[in-house]
């Protein structure tokens, strides 16, 4: 590969970036290779069975779920971003960050919270019955949330922040000049959204929706609770119930191919669009002041997704956690899990951010298909369902551990045990492979706003490559770096399937603790872990909202 790379403009620093980027790409690619290799085994008539009995239904379900979630996430995310960027009204300051809060709620928690809240015996239906004068749920029934529409609403309202986040950043950094220009040219205030802001925000929306949909594809827990049979559930059934890992890998590979195809299509569709690089401090667009009923309407519109995606489940979790505390007290395992969660997520964030920066930076300082390719590969892990990726990592990591252990035993009479699996390093690997897409993507976007002419200017003015990095690139991409770090941290905290499979003995995170209880059906014991998980997630989410906001001049 290196032989085809364009010549370095200066030698050492640049080739170091490329080397790290290459190594990162290899690390991400290895588990995917393992999956593809696993899939190559003969699985008899698996596909005959799948094509006739499974795929028509689960592909249809997956399609409807993705479409529905995508529509809700796009409408809510884009709409909310526009409301808080274009208008000024009482409460806007709070909405701006509060709209991100659902990010702190894992989809599986959201699903089980709503199952309880909307259950016939739960508070909502109880109140409705009381108002209507029915005494028993047998007399009066509302539609069951365990359905496709239930799943779409749950996913849409917990995942829309991905779209909100990317779109708002776009509105904040791009809109000011363009809005002014189009207003000057006679476009009405209301039409600005449809004719200028929305088309401009398309790539940002696309990125947000892609993240949203991959989260849906990765989910097993929530759709299982809600009784929606997706392709991911089929992977799972094939692996676990029929003990057919190769078959599961085949379905996963097929899904991965499909996702990649969609990503390529999306990129191709906007191949000719270029976005103004505007590295100067972003100027927020002048917000229109709203008063009276208009202000109230804007506030209501902004509050709705927060109520559904965050406040509802949070209040429910708090109330059941309080009940549980009275009943069983606070267990020391919760404290240990909290410390573990924060520690491993922080370490992973540092690692993922460093690697993501290397990949994105290598692609900038040495443009060309090779470095571009590294960054594409580095983001592949996000498109693989977490359970499958975990297996792809388990195999090479365990092989390394065994080889090292065997070598040490044979030659030195020492045992290293399982170095990577036993120390939790395998978890860091899994998180990196999975979430590099988020850091690489975010940092790439941040760097792309810095015009190349700045690099040339800095070099002309006598800065070395590393000087340019420190004095120009890092300060100007600071916001993107912080945003990526916070997003990665929250995602690592919530991660479940890889953590479940790859963690060392006696090592629980809040997510695995929660899952252990939920799998047993004792949700009430899980509520404390769930509320802690959400509570810890809130801080980075609020910080995240602040990073996007331009500083006052």
């Amino acid at each position: 590969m290196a032989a085809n790379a364009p010549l370095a403009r200066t030698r050492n620093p640049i080739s170091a970036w490329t080397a790290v980027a290459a190594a990162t790409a290899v690390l991400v690619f290895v588990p995917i290779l393992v999956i593809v290799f696993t899939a190559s085994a003969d699985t008899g008539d698996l596909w005959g069975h799948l094509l006739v009995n499974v795929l028509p239904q689960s592909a249809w379900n997956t399609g409807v779920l993705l479409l529905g979630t995508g529509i809700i996430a796009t409408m809510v995310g884009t709409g909310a971003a526009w409301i808080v960027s274009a208008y000024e009204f009482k409460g806007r300051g709070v909405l701006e960050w509060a709209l991100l809060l659902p990010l702190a709620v894992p989809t599986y928690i959201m699903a089980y919270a709503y199952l309880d809240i909307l259950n016939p015996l739960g508070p909502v239906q109880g109140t409705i019955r009381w108002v209507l004068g029915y005494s028993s749920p047998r007399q009066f029934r509302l539609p069951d949330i365990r359905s496709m529409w239930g799943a779409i609403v749950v996913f849409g309202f917990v995942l829309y922040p991905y779209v909100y986040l990317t779109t708002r950043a776009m509105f904040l950094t791009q809109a000011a000049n363009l809005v002014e220009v189009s207003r000057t040219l006679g476009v009405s205030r209301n039409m600005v959204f449809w004719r200028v802001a929305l088309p401009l925000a398309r790539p940002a929306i696309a990125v947000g929706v892609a993240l949203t949909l991959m989260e849906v594809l990765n989910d097993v827990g929530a759709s299982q609770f809600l009784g929606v049979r997706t392709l991911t559930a089929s992977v799972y059934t094939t692996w676990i119930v029929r003990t057919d890992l190769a078959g599961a890998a085949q379905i996963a590979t097929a899904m991965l191919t499909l996702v990649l195809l969609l990503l390529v299509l999306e990129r191709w569709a906007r191949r000719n669009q270029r976005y103004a690089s505007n590295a100067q401090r972003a100027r927020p667009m002048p917000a229109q002041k709203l008063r009276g009923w208009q202000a109230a309407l804007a506030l209501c519109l902004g509050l709705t997704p927060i109520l559904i995606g965050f406040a509802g489940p949070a209040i429910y979790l708090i109330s059941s956690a309080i009940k549980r505390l009275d009943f069983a007290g606070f267990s020391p395992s919760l404290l240990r899990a909290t410390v573990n969660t924060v520690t491993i997520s922080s370490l992973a964030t540092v690692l993922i951010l460093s690697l993501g920066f290397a990949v994105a930076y290598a692609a900038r300082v040495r443009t060309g298909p090779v470095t571009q390719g590294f960054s594409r590969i580095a983001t592949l892990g996000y498109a693989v369902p977490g359970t499958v990726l975990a297996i792809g990592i388990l195999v090479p990591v365990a092989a390394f551990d065994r080889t090292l252990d065997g070598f040490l035993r044979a030659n030195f009479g020492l045992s290293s045990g399982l170095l990577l699996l036993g120390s939790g390093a395998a978890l860091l690997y899994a998180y990196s492979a999975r979430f590099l897409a988020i850091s690489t993507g975010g940092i790439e976007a941040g760097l792309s706003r810095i015009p190349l002419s700045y690099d040339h200017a800095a070099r002309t003015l006598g800065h070395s490559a590393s000087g340019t990095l420190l004095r120009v690139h890092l300060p100007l991409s600071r916001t993107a770096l912080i945003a990526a770090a916070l997003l990665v941290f929250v995602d690592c905290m919530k991660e479940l399937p890889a953590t479940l499979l790859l963690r060392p003995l006696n090592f629980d995170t809040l997510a695995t603790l929660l899952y252990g209880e939920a799998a047993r059906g004792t949700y009430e014991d899980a509520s404390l872990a769930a509320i802690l998980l959400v509570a810890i997630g809130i801080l980075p989410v609020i910080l995240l909202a602040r990073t996007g906001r331009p500083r006052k001049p």
Partner: protein
Amino acid sequence: MASLHKIIFATSALALGVAVPAIAEELNIYTTREPGLVQPLLDAFTAETGVTVNTVFLQDGIIERAKAEGESSPADILMTVDFGNLIDLVDAGLTQPIQSDVLSAAIPETLRDKDGNWFALSSRARVVYAAKDLDLDAITYEQLADEEWKGRLCIRSGQHPYNTATFAAYLAKHGEEATKTWLEGIKANQARAAAGGDRDGARDIAAGICDIALANSYYVGLMASGAGGDEQKAWADAIKVILPTFENGGTLVNISGAAVAKHAPNKDQAVKLLEYLVSPAAQKIYAEANFEYPVNASAEVHPIIAAFGTLTPDSLALSDILPFRKRASELVDEVNFDTFSN
């Protein structure tokens, strides 16, 4: 960057505690049993023997993990909730035979491997929950598909191991055509999507969504004892439990069990733990904390569970059901069991 890698790795290793050192009085368990269920037993074992027990709860992938780690694996005991998973471990060559007079004496022959590769530790029955005021005292598994239950039955996903084991037993007894018709009948009887857990069956009966549900016996104990809070007690109060049987047969029973890992570094301790788990003292904990049926005949069944009536396990051996599991899972797909359309 290389140095950064090292720093990160060293920090993480420090923070997480590098590989468990091989001290003699330790024992490592890989389990698919939920931690809440096994921990009371392990704590009691540690209190009695001073042996520290380290666990990791691997819901799925216990086979893959043990296989990948090979001879370097720290696992001493592999513990599963379901018979199928247990045998899969044996078939994958991840266990070793154990000869122990204590285990042979405590566990009936049908509930352990003749070569000593696996041992049952507790058992549970696949029972029917029914609305309390329902005029129903007995039911067969076959009758679950009867038209009288149309729109009245709740069940979890057809692909859950508890259900595939049940369907596999039906398949072993009645053959493919009959099983498919039966599954179609159950699907037509569903009152809501086949989802959630076994407890949701009781809750949905309390909520009036369904009249009967298929579920495991021990959940009733957890709910009725009040250990899960007042709400769950209300669910348990809304139902009665019927021990169903197969026509000309008995009630379907599954087990939780364990095996000693092939490369167990602490084999002696592992055997000691297994022997402890089937002792009357530990079997009492199984009965009291988990509401399962003990495997040791000298231990008593919990009064809540005993109140269901006398359990007559079906004569079909678990090992005869096992080969039908995969086909049962395929039949679930073929009748589109998990897609709710009633």
